């Protein structure tokens, strides 16, 4: 009786809690996140095929075969084998895992962060540097940079190359899709796209020191017009992003959203090279290309 009341109470509580809530992962604003949401629902649904019968059997058997009930049911203390039953509960899970496994393989490729997004629009390149404890965004082709604010044009693929000058961090915008680690001396890649305008929060998911919780940023998905006007105003900004400014903002501390005029197109490469030097022998310490994707790096 107590158990039944508790279950009812918990279900009601769950309903009340989630009634007004907004779930970025479940209410996606981009194609990548939308695919991931469908995948989540599909996988969850397929597993319920096994889980729900198991829960039913659990309650049923516990009730039916309880010691007080023994006059009404068969007690067979030595019964411990049944080939057909075993075939069923090996077989069905194997089938389900087979389906899920194939799904996992396919989606690992289609939703690979490195995979470019199919779109008529030309991609916008953004270089991301995780710092203690802020995010630097460099738009190398547009001559601007910003800290903690990430305006992007809507319906346009954004191609991120990501590095860090901080303990291992991770770049994540739940409304738009996948996260990926930002690491010193490495360059990871991510491709996202926003399907509608709006403001979407972004986070760091990997602990990197005292300012970790404050390392938030915002993606502002804007119409082409609004995006262009942001670029224009950033280019006129008195703030200059060059090596000196980079040194300044690299010092530990938090910052509010700021836009800059980009003075040095090679800043991102300089950040990567700062730590990558140590991984090279004296033979190849010169001349590295600007696109360093993970396949060139020593991996696992």
């Amino acid at each position, binding site marked *: 009786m107590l158990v039944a009341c508790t279950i009812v109470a*918990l279900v009601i509580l769950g309903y009340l*809690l989630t009634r007004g809530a907004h*779930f970025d992962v479940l209410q996606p604003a981009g194609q990548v996140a939308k695919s991931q949401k469908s995948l989540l629902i599909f996988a969850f649904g397929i597993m319920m095929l096994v889980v729900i019968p198991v829960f039913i059997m*659990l309650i049923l058997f516990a009730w039916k*075969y309880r010691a007080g009930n*023994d006059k009404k049911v068969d007690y067979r203390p030595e019964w411990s084998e049944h080939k057909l039953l075993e075939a069923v509960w*090996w077989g069905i899970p194997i089938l389900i895992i087979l389906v899920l496994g194939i799904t*996992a393989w396919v989606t690992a490729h289609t939703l690979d962060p490195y995979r470019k997004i199919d779109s008529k629009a030309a991609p916008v390149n953004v270089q991301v540097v995780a710092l203690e404890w802020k995010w630097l965004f460099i738009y190398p082709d547009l001559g601007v940079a910003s800290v903690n604010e990430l305006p992007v044009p809507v319906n346009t693929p954004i191609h991120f190359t990501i590095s860090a000058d901080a303990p291992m961090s991770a770049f994540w915008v739940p409304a738009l899709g996948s996260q990926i680690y930002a690491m010193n001396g490495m360059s990871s890649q991510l491709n996202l796209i926003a399907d509608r305008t709006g403001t979407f929060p972004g986070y760091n998911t990997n*602990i990197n020191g005292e300012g970790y919780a404050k390392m938030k940023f915002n993606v502002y998905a804007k119409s082409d017009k609004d995006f262009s006007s942001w670029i224009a105003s950033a280019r006129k900004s008195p703030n200059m992003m060059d090596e000196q400014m980079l040194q300044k903002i690299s010092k530990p501390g938090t910052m509010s959203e700021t836009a800059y005029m980009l003075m040095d197109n090679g800043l991102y490469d300089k950040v990567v090279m700062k*730590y990558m030097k140590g991984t090279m022998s004296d033979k190849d310490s010169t001349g590295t290309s600007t696109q360093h994707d993970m396949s060139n790096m020593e991996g696992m």
Partner: protein
Amino acid sequence: MDWQWLIGRLDLSYLPHEPVTMGAAIGMPLTLVAIAAALTYFKKWGYLWREWITTVDAKRIGIMYGSVAIIMLMRGVFDALMIRSQTALGGPGGSQLFSTDTYQQVFTSHGVIMIFFVAMGLMFALFNIAVPLMIGTRDVAFPFLNAVSFWLFFAGMILVNGSLIFGGFSIGGWLGYPPLTELQYSPGPGVDYWIWSLQIAGIGSLLSGINFFVTILKHRAPGMTFMRMPIFVWSVLVTTVLIMIAFPMLTASLALLSLDRLMGMHFFTSMGGGNPMMYINLIWAWGHPEVYILVMPAFGIFSEIVATFSRKRLFGYKTMVIALVAIMFFSFIVWQHHFFTMGAGADVNAFFGIMTMIIAIPTGVKLFNWLFTMYRGRITFASPMVWFMCFAVTFTIGGVTGVLMAVPAIDFQVHNTLFLVAHFHNVIIGGVVFGYLAAITYWFPKMFGFRLHEGFGKAAAYFWQVGFLLAFMPLYALGLMGAVRRLDNYSDPAWIPFFIVSAVGVVFVGAGIACQVLQIAYSVWKRKELHVTGDPWGGRTLEWSVPSPAPFYNYAIIPKVNRVDEWWYQKEEGVKAPKDSEYKDIVMPKNTSFGFIIGMTAFVLSGALIWHIWWLVILTFIAVVAMIIMRTMDDFTEYTIPAAEVMKMDKEARA
């Protein structure tokens, strides 16, 4: 004269400054002083030394492991309360109960304590208490090594708690990823406390793994073939294989990080060519087997409990063994699923994701086998069986979210969020904690001669189960709302109600633990009424054939085994009293203080390494080596009990 070398980098500035840590720094020593005073007043120092500190009896060592683990559980849940109080108040316009630095130390020590000192501690407690009795032997293969393992575990425990008083703990999470834990970002002693408490406890675990593997191979009673062993013993065997293969990788990871920190090397540093990704691979190559190390004994326990309380043979013994071996094998080839988001590429991610999902198959099979053990059984819902019901529901939910996260593309959206935190607590609490708590209730009478009070036990299960749901189901929701892990403040007010419910959940769990503490206290007080025979549950396996509490030599006469569940069938056929001629001389290992001394020296050695007191490092290292050599030269480590005395003790115990 410069005397700094004498004390290394010790300095008064390392004393705590915040109310909560100052409270701990004062409270802990005060408690120890109070205990010492009580021991002196009741004149129990001699008893403590003779019967507990110098013991090599596995049952006593098991009880010590269990006691330390339960005390550490209280500290771990208190850490959880601190974490959830902070997050309940950490929304916009809220307040910061603890400094961020303290908060980060708290969640780091919460993870370390729960995994290394509560879960591993309870696990080794159960190995020691149950395995020798279940296989019909007197003690483990290497009793002295067993004692050393416990005191190394104890040393690690002192290090974690000692950091509260002096120096502070690591802020890098329970696995301490570099470069955050390198000198560049964490120059203080906190990370070093973390490294050495894990390293020392880890060596103890490795030695125990070897010990129990050899014990199961070499100490089984005559006639007990592998396929006649209790399933719990199979689960232990498989677990020890995992321990022996996985723990050296933890030793290596921690050693290399400590070389970076102590000697300025460049394994995982950002500069000099170091590769933090290598650390992540190495430590998770240990870390994943570790969670299977923790859960497989719990599976074994539930196999015993479900069969016993359904008064029915375990369904599919052979399949259960195959499932255990399959899980063991697969747990080695899934580690990369802990960092799908590190950028290894689709092929690698997909491979490891598929391997991870495959483990769900044998695990599911076990669940079905338990269900069909209940089928056509006659089930009594004593508290161990109540714990099983809680486990079956809770662990299954956790398994579902695990398979979800095994799909790399899904993991990209939930990795390192509170969804992940909910998942692993789901399986660890539902599987490991519920299993070990069930086992404590199950085997308590065998150790102490009286039962634990049932009412408190069932209340505890209720509070734990409800507490778990309240504390962690909101976290699944929060993860999907974008809440990442390890946050002490956030700016979305919609998250606040979820964090409040979660905090209430922790209070419920605390109530569950309070019930358990009351249960023990009340049961000790009422132990005459709760007194039991050797077989309070109508058990199936050998340990229930000896009196309760089990005599120090376990079996006066080593039993002969002809089938699975030997004791159950012996009862059916009629238990015969032993003939006088069957009693033989018994050789038992002597008590020794070396286990304790080696453990404490290891503690001092670790402290010296943490505080850079090099002369003390050299001294304690030589001391440990010397003591090991001295022990190997000791020819008189055993004593004999003559058969007549054995017979006398046995007849008295059975009267």
